[in-house]
């Protein structure tokens, strides 16, 4: 009997954004996010008073998934950031900070939501059209013939995660490894569509970062005892492999919905075991060298196989099944009866390996797009952070293959974009105002709020008390060291802009980012102009940032449009 219980009525609040409490919480969240942003961002230690491990991080994905928020508006903001991160891995903090900034700035203007949403949409379209256009001044095409740009991209990602606790040398090492791992997943000869392989990250905690390596093929962790049993491996030029997805533990498969009556004296276990041993005999007669099973192997079968010098590994797990079948070229076998010879695969070599205290069996493929990235770091939290970083970098590289261009990092894209929008709305306001009933003043007000929001994101990169400036030619972002004198000869104090493309020795004029900006038409600063600078650029993923920008504006629009919050109190 179902229990009936009256539902409590919900709580309905009007104009949620005007409440002081919501503003304060938004402000706190923004503070947390901005202080973690960028290479010099501060680390956050999140720990649950009720138990669980302490997480030290500055990454949005780790931070937001560990940080519970209660207010529905904040929930919208954090979920949309988390969803963005799960799609693109990168630019999560950028999205969240931009969204917070937009909400805050727009509220200050006091315009009606209708106008704000309309205009925000127009400005967003301006941004995306500009970023996608050929004339875009903050976009660099990727040259796949040299690894330089990709390496810069990976390095920018690794350096922007300070919680990995890497030295300069370690950063270079990890960046190179990640790029190598990525290149190993690209198939050599493709027909029509490029299908990328997979890099499997193998954990090895408590070791030096410089011990990390990349192998083609798969590392399967085995216990030392098991390895001793396997050894020595007889040498041959190729090993025949069988991969099972069905359980070989001797359990009875589904017998149907009806009942099964077993006469006394009949042992089904024996019958099944007999069947398993028959299977073993077939494997031996087919000259299989390695048998792997996703589930459990019956001990007797294992014994039988090892007697016939067949290496048997069980409990591989479902996660490894797809890479294993790809590496060995097998078809996972689901039958205990006759096995078609076409389901067998092979590996080039099979060798035991020992890293630190862990033993592995290394499957070296003939030709495959699967590689293993053995990742080391000193402690658990730093390792977790490094793993996330490497995953992000690998994902970003995949996205870059699809859309072969990158954006300038170090805040330069944001300031450049802000300058462009100011210029556009100041000189051609008709194109925006044409179709809907907004006035020019409203447009000016909102453009200022929008550009300020973008510039504050760039400004959040600076955490050490320095000044953030922008130049009047390219619209790039520059930051000076702390305690610089108030009136200075800027070229001496600034060396390179945020992305590293522009040099301060050019004839440039600067203005503080906080000061009122005059509309300028930002020019394109090309990498080949500044010779030698292309080796050490700070770059961002194009796809992730573009989508982050769109998601941030859409989320801000959504939050600004709320007129009621109905909370279900059940």
């Amino acid at each position, binding site marked *: 009997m179902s229990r009936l219980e009256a539902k409590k009525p919900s709580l309905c609040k009007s104009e949620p954004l005007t409440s002081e409490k919501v503003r304060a919480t938004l402000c706190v969240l923004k503070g947390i996010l901005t202080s973690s942003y960028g290479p010099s961002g501060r680390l956050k230690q999140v720990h649950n008073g009720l138990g669980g491990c302490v997480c030290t991080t500055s990454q949005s994905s780790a931070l937001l998934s560990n940080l519970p928020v209660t207010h529905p508006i904040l929930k919208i903001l954090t979920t949309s950031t988390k*969803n963005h991160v799960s799609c693109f891995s990168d630019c999560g903090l950028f999205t969240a900070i931009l969204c917070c900034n937009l909400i805050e700035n727009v509220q200050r203007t006091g315009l009606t939501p209708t106008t704000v949403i309309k205009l925000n949409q127009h400005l967003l379209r301006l941004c995306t059209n500009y970023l996608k256009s050929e004339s875009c001044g903050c976009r660099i095409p990727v040259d796949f013939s040299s690894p330089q740009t990709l390496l810069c991209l990976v390095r920018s990602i690794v350096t922007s995660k300070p919680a990995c606790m890497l030295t300069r040398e370690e950063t270079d090492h990890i960046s190179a490894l990640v790029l190598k791992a990525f290149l190993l997943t690209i198939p050599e000869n493709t027909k029509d569509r490029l299908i990328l392989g997979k890099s499997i990250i193998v954990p090895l905690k408590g070791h030096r970062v410089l011990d990390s390596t990349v192998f083609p093929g798969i590392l399967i962790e085995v216990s030392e005892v098991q390895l001793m049993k396997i050894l020595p491996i007889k040498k041959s030029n190729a090993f025949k492999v069988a991969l099972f997805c069905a359980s070989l533990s001797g359990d009875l498969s589904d017998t149907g*919905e009806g*009942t099964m009556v077993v*006469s006394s004296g009949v042992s089904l276990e024996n019958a099944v075991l007999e069947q398993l041993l028959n299977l073993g005999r077939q494997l031996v007669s087919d000259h299989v060298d390695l048998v792997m099973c996703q589930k459990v192997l019956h001990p007797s079968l294992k014994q039988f196989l090892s007697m016939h010098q067949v290496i048997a590994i069980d409990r591989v797990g479902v996660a490894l099944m797809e890479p294993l079948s790809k590496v060995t070229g097998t078809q996972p076998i689901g039958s205990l*009866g006759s096995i078609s010879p076409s389901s067998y695969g092979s590996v080039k070599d099979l060798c035991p390996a020992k890293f630190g205290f862990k033993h592995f069996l290394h499957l070296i493929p003939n030709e495959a797009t699967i590689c293993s990235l053995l990742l080391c770091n000193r402690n658990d939290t730093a390792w977790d952070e490094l793993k996330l970083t490497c995953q992000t970098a690998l994902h970003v590289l995949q996205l870059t293959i699809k859309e072969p261009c990158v954006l300038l990092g170090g805040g330069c894209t944001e300031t450049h974009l802000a300058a462009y929008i100011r210029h556009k709305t100041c000189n051609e306001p008709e194109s925006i105002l044409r179709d809907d009933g907004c006035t020019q003043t409203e447009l000016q007000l909102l453009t200022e709020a929008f550009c300020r929001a973008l510039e504050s994101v760039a400004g959040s990169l600076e955490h050490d008390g320095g000044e953030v400036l922008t130049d009047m030619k390219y619209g790039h972002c520059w930051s000076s060291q702390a305690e610089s004198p108030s009136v200075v000869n800027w070229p001496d104090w600034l060396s390179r802009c945020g992305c590293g493309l522009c040099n301060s020795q050019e004839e440039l004029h600067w203005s503080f980012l906080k000061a009122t900006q005059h509309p300028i038409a930002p020019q394109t600063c090309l990498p080949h102009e500044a010779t030698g600078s292309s080796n050490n650029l700070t770059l961002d993923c194009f796809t992730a940032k573009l989508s982050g920008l769109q998601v941030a504006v859409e989320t801000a629009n959504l939050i600004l449009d709320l007129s009621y*919050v109905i909370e279900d109190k059940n």
Partner: protein
Amino acid sequence: MAALGSAKAALQVTEVLETILSRCLGPEGRQVLCTKPTGEVLISRSGGCLLEALHLEHPIARMVVACVSSHLRRTGDGAKTFIILLCHLLRGLHTVIDKEQDSLISKNIQTHRRHWKNCCQWKFISQALLTFQTQILDYIMDHYLSKHFLTIFSSSTEERTLCRSSLELLLEAYFCGRVGRNNHYFISQLMCNYFFKCMACESGFEEVFDLVDDYFVELNVGVTGLPVSDSRIIAGLVLHRDFSVYCPADGDIRIVIVTETIQPLFSASASEFILNSEAQFQTSQFWIMEKTKAIVKHLQSQNVKLLLSSVKQPDLVTYYAGLNGISVVECLSPEEVSLIQRVMGLSPFILPQASSQYEICNTASVKFCKPLTLRSKRYVHLGLISTCSFVPHCIVLCGPVQGLVEQHEGALHGAFKMLRQLFKDLDLSYMIQTSDQNHTSSPLTYKDSRESNPLPEIVNGLIQRPYQGTVVKNKGNLAKTQTYLKVYSNLVVPSVELETCIPCSTPKVTPTDTYQTNETLRCLAPTKTRTIDDNEPFIESNSANSTAENTGIEISSENLQVTKIAGKGNMLPVREKSLEMCTSQSYCCSTLPAGCVLPVGGNFEILLHYYLLNYTRKCQQSEESVVSMIIANALLGIPQVLYKSKKGKYSFPQIYIRTLHALQTSQPIVSSQKGLESVAGKYQLLTSVLQCLTKILTIDLVINIRRQPREMYDQDSDEEV
């Protein structure tokens, strides 16, 4: 505990609801965030969702919500308008009652008795409402309002073809009230594209609506974390799961559907399998294996490349399928299976019981079958070849958060419901009262005669639709049109001029007049040049209907170029009215043809208001006139909310006065907004509200019980015991 006076309580309740919902109404409406107890967040502007999320406790409120949801189930639209209208009606009733009470109060009745007296009064009113709803409303709709209706079809001939531009206008207006302001245009375009892509032929759109409405969940895929603008339409069907085995295949890909495991089992349900020896077990296992192998082999020999299964298949089956190059998709939902069956006309493959006798095999071809990755989740993408008028396409809906994706899904589904409703004929039936006999007889007879002698649509070939309506009913008119045409033949005529030249006749002569068309045409602006070369002389061969017209007109038009207004062709006045005179002289049935629309922005409400007021003036019975008056005034509540934020020329009083003036002087009404809405939807909404109000008014006492609800026993089962 009992509470008196439910009408009063109902007013209080609806007023609260009105304040919440009126802020979400119309193009200026804003969003509401609802949290669920599970922690999920939903973004919504749909009235039905909000009312449900509020979890109202008050019994009257719960009744109102139940009425709204039953209305929504039928039409998929109008929850917010429902509440606002109800609130205004209750308010109107109260002011009337209060006035009467003031006069009564001197009589010094005891409070208790007064309450019961009130209840009697409410009862009378509710009866009057019922009469209104069943008789007067239909009468007014048919006689007065119908001449203002436009249709969504691009021609008024037998073959109904949908016009894209008017569908766009209709959808845009719908989504204005349903999704966020920044997305409504995008979503309505998406839906329009989707609809036209799914439609195999012009005429089969009803089937498309039915199918999409029934299988909406299966036909869309939600993706979170991407901007809304990444939403798109994919050709083919996307199944919400991954392949169990995928073997790339080209060319003729045949598929089968199975609903049970291919591998035979030891024992079927309700049967017994007796095992006597180990050898028996092994042989039976061997038999099972061989049998499975044989079935899969057979499938392969039939060129089957894809096996769709509604159940999980054993490892053995997937293994053999993989070996034979057959891809497998398992665990399809019953809805997915029935959708595929309906689209492809494919019935499930029945496993043969006897061995090796399976020559009859239900297979069908697909264009392609490949994995599709959306946001690192894998789906199965099938290029189904349709056998019905629905060409399968899927909508991929993107949004930063799940709540927004759900809102868009809900809005799209509602739109399909609304369209499905729009394309059904609506029956109107009413009694003609004797007192009104004089008034109604003339249009009736007129219509009747028209039916028997349909005017050949002569101008048709020459100048297209808009002038069809002007096929004239009196000679003066015709002459004017004709002269005008003569004057302008061989000329490029700007459309505005054309319209201004359309003769104005008095509405008395032609009840189905043409002003409405012209007026709407003018406000639906972008112009498009269109050349019509039809050199045939056109001859009017008019029958007995009017002798004066028999003269015959010839207009030889050579290369007559008419600048035609886009979207104009479809804005026809709805003229075909299958009006039947029933056996009883006073009983009348007619239908509101499918696809009737009116411009948005409270046009329906103001029109109905105007005609109701006119009606009350003629009406003798006091109850009826009071009720009609209240309804007429309450109807204005909706445009009032819609134009709340508008100022100056577009403020509500201005618009109201302008429209009334236009109606009185029989001039075209100029609407400030483009966009259309369904008349049938509005009509049904009004009837639902009136029914709800009648229900509220018939309650006199609310008895509050605090006890666990008793279990309801089924009477039949009692008898069995």
